[in-house]
């Protein structure tokens, strides 16, 4: 538990262009993941476990599903005096007119009122593209003890080219102080940023106001890299489960990895991940169903065959349907005799009788929300 009041900020829309198919009418933060969660649940739950009781979610567009998911914040225990605030773009209206921000600096500058009114000592900033469940208390304590101005949470580098795109890599000295920052490039001697940062609240306001006055946009490039000499920017090395969603392919791969109990227990074993409560009843497995190696959320009815699948809530797999190597989102109905392999179905999809659809691990077939195939 943190010993200083700390504020959490989550950027809901950053990186959503990388999974364009799935973010047409939702933000990155509200992308469904892991059977019953949305990506925002991971950062929110980590915050709550550290005792953070004030969180702002910075949104830009497409945030209706996020507003619906968060509600009052009570499912994360954030229906409190300060609690959770969704900072919609309309709250940034200023005398200069409504600003659609670009980049993190403008985004933070736009919600500076929220930061100014907070009484917190520190701010933890997180994006929604990483799936992980870090111990925020440990990260903030590291920040305080190291006397850093800014702490970046980093992981061991991953040479996967998809992961290198739009990534931030840092090099540090033995003390963990960052002495170089690189963009979109892999180097085995650089750690990769997890887009989670800690900074003092007043320091953040000062940095952002200064940068904004100089029309700067990118936090890592225009503030951190530019001022590495004078600012003490530290790297906190995170060694637990972490995956980054960089596109449909990686979404598919990371989802199906959860059918390995060693991997799912790494993600879910350390601290509870909270999410919106749906009151779905238990899963009903019928006589004659065949289920292998699958991760299944409540509310489903399984009469057919499923193998290597992640099933979200309230999915129906009818008798004679065969679903393999697929991610099936909430309320999908797979009718009798249909066969799916290598497919990602979005919410409320219906696959009618006898249809056969398949994709590949390198190119999964995505079926849009509310489609009837």
């Amino acid at each position, binding site marked *: 538990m943190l010993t200083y009041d700390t504020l959490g900020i989550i950027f809901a829309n950053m990186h959503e262009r990388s999974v364009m198919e799935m973010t047409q009418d939702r933000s990155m933060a509200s992308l469904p993941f*892991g*059977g*019953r969660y949305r990506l925002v649940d991971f950062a929110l739950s980590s915050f709550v476990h550290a005792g953070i009781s004030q969180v702002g979610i910075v949104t830009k567009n497409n945030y209706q599903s996020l507003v619906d998911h968060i509600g009052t914040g*009570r*499912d994360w225990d954030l229906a409190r005096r300060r609690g959770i605030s969704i900072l919609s773009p309309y709250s940034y209206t200023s005398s200069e007119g409504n600003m659609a921000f670009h980049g993190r600096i403008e985004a933070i500058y736009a919600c500076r009122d929220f930061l100014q009114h907070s009484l917190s000592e520190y701010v933890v900033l997180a994006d929604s593209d990483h799936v992980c469940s870090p111990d925020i208390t440990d990260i903030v304590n590291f920040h305080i003890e190291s006397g850093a101005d800014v702490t970046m949470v980093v992981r061991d580098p991953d040479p996967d080219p998809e992961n290198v795109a739009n990534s931030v890599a840092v090099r540090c000295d033995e003390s963990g102080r960052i002495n170089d920052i690189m963009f979109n490039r892999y180097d085995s001697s650089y750690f990769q940023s997890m887009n989670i940062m800690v900074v003092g609240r007043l320091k953040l306001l000062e940095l952002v106001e200064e940068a904004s006055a100089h029309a700067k946009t990118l936090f890592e490039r225009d503030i951190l890299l530019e001022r590495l000499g004078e600012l003490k920017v530290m790297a906190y090395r995170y060694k637990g489960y972490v995956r980054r969603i960089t596109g449909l392919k990686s979404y598919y791969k990371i989802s199906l990895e959860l*059918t390995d*109990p060693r991997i*799912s227990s790494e*993600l*879910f074993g350390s601290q*509870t*991940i*909270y*999410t919106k*409560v749906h*009151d779905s*009843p*238990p*899963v*009903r*497995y*019928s*006589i*004659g*169903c065949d*289920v*292998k*190696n*699958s*991760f*299944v*959320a*409540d*509310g489903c*009815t399984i009469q057919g065959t499923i193998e290597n699948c*992640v*099933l979200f809530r309230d999915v129906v797999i009818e008798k004679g349907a065969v679903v393999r190597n697929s991610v099936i989102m909430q309320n999908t109905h797979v009718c009798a005799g249909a066969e799916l392999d290598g497919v990602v179905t979005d919410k409320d999809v219906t696959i009618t009788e006898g249809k056969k659809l398949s994709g590949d691990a390198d190119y999964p077939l995505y079926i849009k929300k509310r489609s009837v195939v």
Partner: protein
Amino acid sequence: MKECVAMLLAGGQGSRLYALTQNIAKPAVPYGGKYRIIDFPLSNCTNSGIDTVGVLTQYQPLELNEYIGNGRPWDLDRLDGGVHVLPPYQKSSGSDWYLGTANAICQNIRFIDRYDPQYVLILSGDHIYKMDYRRMLDVHKASHADCTISVMKVPMEEASRFGIMNADENDIIYEFEEKPKNPKSDLASMGIYIFSWDVLREYLLKDDADPDSEHDFGKNVIPAILNDGKRLKAYRFEGYWKDVGTIASLWDANMDLLNPSRPFDVWAKENRIYSRPQSLPPHFIAEGAKVENSLITEGSQVFGEVESSVLFGGAYVEEGAEVSFSLLLPGARVKKGAKVRYSIIAENSVVGEGASVGASPEEFSQIDDWGIAVVGPGLKVGRNADIKANAMIYDDVQEGEVKC
């Protein structure tokens, strides 16, 4: 002011559930994978628009109190009304435990009066059913009754196990018989009553003053109201209703959920049953597992075989283990090669490697010798132990030990 306040009798010990109610009150007993018995009356209240519920607790209330909390899972955290846990308390004139169902309500007359209701709905915490109490209240109002009792038809040969209502062609009750030897009707009381509050209030005070009374609704208050010629109406309920007061009926009621003809539908989107969330990840069925005709809940992991069983949150079936016709309550674990049949394994208990719990009724020539085996909460059953059918386990069982 509230039109109708519900009072939920949740103080029962549930002594016929033995090991399952050693440390918890009967309404807190788990049911159906992710529920507890009390979720049913509480969800029914909220789905019926009743937002003020007094829960009368007495026996082992700790877990039940914690579970109910501020009532938020059932939408019963209200500015005006909401759910209130009402334990017995000390008064200037002395103090008493709740002496009976009627006495429990009588001791809380002041609670009910605060809401100045026209009607009071009396519920109990040991039944599994879905009901819209508004329909019953409509009947109560339309028939100008003083008391309306919910009844359902039971097979005539079983009628002598229930409180039987003898009613005229307009369903006006003229006689009430508790467990009659020779029942005259097949209308059984479901233990759900609506009273006009002024009438009930008067009879509770009268009953309280009677030193010979057992202060029980069925035995004292309702007969007294009937004898005075008040108007008692039978409300006929058609649907699933089950008293889960015994091990056999609790097990049966869970197995009913697996019946393909589905007499009881918890999957329907309307009138959902709510429960306090455990926030567990989705469940996992492994490569070599076999699952058939079962209910499985979040947090469970299955590596072995599960057939015709209900797995509650966080239940774990290891490789090579076999679970059939059984309930694994939250956190129960069945280790490698163990066999669990026709059994209830309570919360967080562990069945050791190669152990056997319970047996199929087909192995018995005298069916009366057979019964569900129960392993109480938090226990360890040692390797290769053998727990026979009908056994009730209260303590750890050693390696290789045989228990009857």
